[in-house]
């Protein structure tokens, strides 16, 4: 597609349930990032992928959070045993990988998945 696609756009889940959030990056972008943004707050870094590997997982808030990326493309962020404090907009971004150009800090963001834990 032309841009970063995230699904679902909205997700309401009950406390304690597991959820999976999907991100389809721009074709050819090897770098992929997950962030979350609580209402009125800034972007909190979660995890970064370069290809299928995740050199930086330091932002994951707890072991209930995990992410994977397969085929250097689609990524899934999984939250197990969701809690109310997990409610936020989860944003995915992709960019060209290292050595692909001078301005590879230009990242393209999806519209996000709004997660509500009730």
């Amino acid at each position: 597609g032309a841009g970063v696609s995230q699904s679902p756009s909205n997700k309401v889940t009950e406390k304690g349930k597991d959820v999976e959030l999907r991100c389809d990056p721009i074709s050819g972008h090897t770098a992929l990032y997950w962030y979350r943004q609580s209402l009125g707050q800034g972007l909190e870094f979660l995890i970064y992928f370069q290809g299928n590997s995740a050199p930086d997982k330091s932002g994951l808030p707890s072991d209930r959070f995990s992410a994977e990326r397969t085929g250097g493309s689609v990524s899934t962020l999984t939250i197990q045993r969701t809690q109310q404090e997990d409610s936020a907009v989860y944003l995915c971004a992709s960019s060209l990988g290292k050595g692909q150009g001078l301005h590879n800090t230009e990242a393209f963001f999806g519209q996000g998945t709004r997660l509500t834990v009730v």
Partner: protein
Amino acid sequence: LAKTTQPISMDSYEGQEVNITCSHNNIATNDYITWYQQFPSQGPRFIIQGYKTKVTNEVASLFIPADRKSSTLSLPRVSLSDTAVYYCLVGDSGDTGRRALTFGSGTRLQVQP
């Protein structure tokens, strides 16, 4: 990680020029300065990037002094649709990791009619 400091909020009126300054005293030699814009309920969008001096595109200008310890995003003749949060980022153009995309608190710009 080079830390950035921006004003929390700014107010302006339609047709005025708006300048948002970001401080990044610990900027490294290889770091570029990048600005993003975020509208409510949307993901951030790249506006402009520069290394030194002045960069201009169809949306904004970016002024970077010789010491590169700060930068100023200039939005000419703002309109109501420029109401958004503006983020200043500092990172190595050769690094696509967290260091390149660490967002601060941003500046919330409110444009009044």
